[in-house]
């Protein structure tokens, strides 16, 4: 199953939107944090985990999803949120802690919730897995269409929740797909040092479900494999585990000096930056012109600019709003 031209255009545009969005966040995050880097200062305080380099995974998978399908994301959620169709302006405002944000500033960047498109997050490693299984179970019991996709990092595949939820999904044949973004690092600990098996997708065998490993951070291959898995889930044939080789171009969080990375590893990574790689491939494939791709990039930038303007221009929440929304 190869993506149609319109899908490819969508994938490219969403990848660029995600990257430009994070570039903007990155710059603004540093405002007020220099010369002394204090996480509490500036327009965007707190931890910030960027997903530069991991965009192909989000678009390759979410190209198959609709608003009614469910996604549970991680502490590194922006690319997944953008690909799932989370409102960009409200997400930006949330990241700035504004009253107009998705949760009125209660959640922030690690807790993006958009009920309109069934998107949810957790900053606790692997804890999106249970809720994804639950959403899939609910669909199965109600006879409602739709699948649940849980995105996690390769480090998260060593958590109990990963194994327990996968087994549950497998025995009950839930319409669920688990996508592991293998960026080779869990903060400072390499996959090699933390995971006894080379490919988490091989762990699928332990649950009697299909497992696929996708090398190369290639959005088209991801699209193809995810498409089959999602179709299979929609047919009621149960879950699939997919691990994708991807790259974290930035530090674990902003402010991470990455002293643990082997020398030169990052130079190699930038040469593989998936966005210019995809652009070159689209052009080489002959079905896109420079002008078309430029237009997509301009459109993406405009959406990002508008979202950032909206966020910056929005009011802070009222301090005492902290005490509301604890209960329904």
């Amino acid at each position, binding site marked *: 199953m190869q993506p149609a031209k319109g899908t490819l255009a969508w994938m490219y545009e969403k990848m660029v939107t995600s990257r430009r969005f994070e570039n903007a966040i990155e710059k603004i995050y540093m405002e007020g944090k220099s010369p002394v880097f204090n*996480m*509490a200062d500036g327009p965007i305080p707190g931890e910030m985990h960027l997903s530069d380099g991991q965009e192909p995974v989000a678009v390759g998978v979410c190209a198959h999803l609709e608003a009614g399908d469910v996604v549970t994301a991680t502490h590194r959620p922006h690319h997944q949120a953008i690909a799932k169709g989370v409102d960009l302006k409200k997400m930006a405002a949330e990241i700035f*802690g504004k009253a107009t944000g998705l949760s009125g500033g*209660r959640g922030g960047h690690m*807790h993006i919730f958009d009920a309109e498109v069934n998107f949810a997050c957790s*900053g606790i490693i692997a804890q999106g897995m249970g809720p994804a299984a639950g959403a899939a179970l609910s669909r199965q019991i109600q006879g409602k269409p739709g699948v649940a996709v849980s995105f996690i990092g390769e480090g998260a595949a060593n958590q*109990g929740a990963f194994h327990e939820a996968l087994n549950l999904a497998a025995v009950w044949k839930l319409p669920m797909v688990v996508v592991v973004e293998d960026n080779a690092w869990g903060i*400072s600990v390499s996959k090699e*040092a933390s995971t006894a098996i080379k490919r988490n997708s091989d762990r699928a065998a332990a649950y009697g479900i299909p497992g696929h490993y996708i090398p190369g951070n290639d959005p088209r291959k991801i699209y193809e494999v995810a498409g089959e898995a999602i179709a299979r889930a929609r047919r009621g044939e149960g879950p699939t585990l997919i691990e994708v080789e991807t790259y974290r171009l930035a530090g674990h969080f902003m402010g991470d000096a990455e002293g643990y990375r082997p020398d030169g590893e990052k130079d190699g990574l930038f040469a593989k930056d998936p966005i210019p790689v995809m652009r070159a491939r689209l052009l080489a494939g002959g079905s896109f012109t420079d002008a078309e791709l430029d237009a997509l990039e301009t459109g993406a930038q405009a959406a990002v600019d508008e979202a950032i303007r909206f966020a910056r221009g929005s009011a802070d929440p009222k301090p005492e709003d902290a005490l509301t929304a604890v209960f329904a």
Partner: protein
Amino acid sequence: MENERKLTIARAMAEATAQEMRDDPSVFVMGEDIAELGGVFGNTRGLLEEFGKERVRDTPISETGFIGAAVGAAQDGMKPVVELMFVDFFGVCFDAIYNLMAKNTYFSGGNVNVPMVLMTSTGGGYSDAGQHSQCLYGSFAHLPGMKVVSPSNAYDAKGLMTAAIRDPNPVIYMYHKGLQGMGWLGTEAGAITHVPEESYEVEIGKAAIAREGRDVTIVSIAQGVHHGLKAADALAQQGISAEVVDLRSLVPLDRETVRASVAKTGRLIVVDEDYHSYGVSGEIIATVTESNMADLKAPPRRIAYPDVPIPFARVMEQHCLPNADKIAAAARDLCGAPVPA
């Protein structure tokens, strides 16, 4: 002046751990990002270089597994020092903590020791939202079988760590992020104190009088002690003399020091960055009212985190957190002084 050197809490913790590792081959350290990175909050820096990978182990993100493993190793003659990076993550591994680590001594009728230290970061104030900013002191102190300590300064941090490692019981060592002396978390100057080079213990279960006073007792732990000290400074200028009690340890709890202070001042404010209800503040107030009702000149007060998850947005979080102004206002109120608008 070599003997007047000052350290941050993070460095004091690492120094105590290194000294114990030198003296006792059964001490080892494990947790996420504690080796090469030296701990996200800097409290294991230098240990990998000195002791190597065998005794300073990065773990997978598998808290149920490695904290449970620490229990097993402790029962088998080792003294693990284990890190749970943020206390908020306890949910994924609490069984290993409160059903194994904390109860195995009891279940064995005292025949099995679990001499381990579980260190974990607490506290917010830097907009890291509801899964990375909690204190949860009460959750740990509530469940029997584990000691719970939390230093407010580097001197205590070193002495409490040494005592914790040597203790034959499991000790939860909670360090407040805002006191670690990591620049990126802001630095509480008062937490950086003189720390002797040589090894020493600060007794677990003994509170300290951080500042003496006559009119009102402010009881707290960790970051709350610094809020209390700042409030006491402000109050002094208005002629109110506040005594600040630094609990240092929640289990065991030094009830005597608290009672003696309130007997002297007649007024009590408890400052707790953990949630208001069912927690440390209620326990301290009960400690006093159970025995010294006659000493109280006014009803006790608590300045605690309201019973809501911790919001991301700065204005909302700051509204909820304890601070010196809130404490000083409560003290003025209790002491009958006019509260400035």
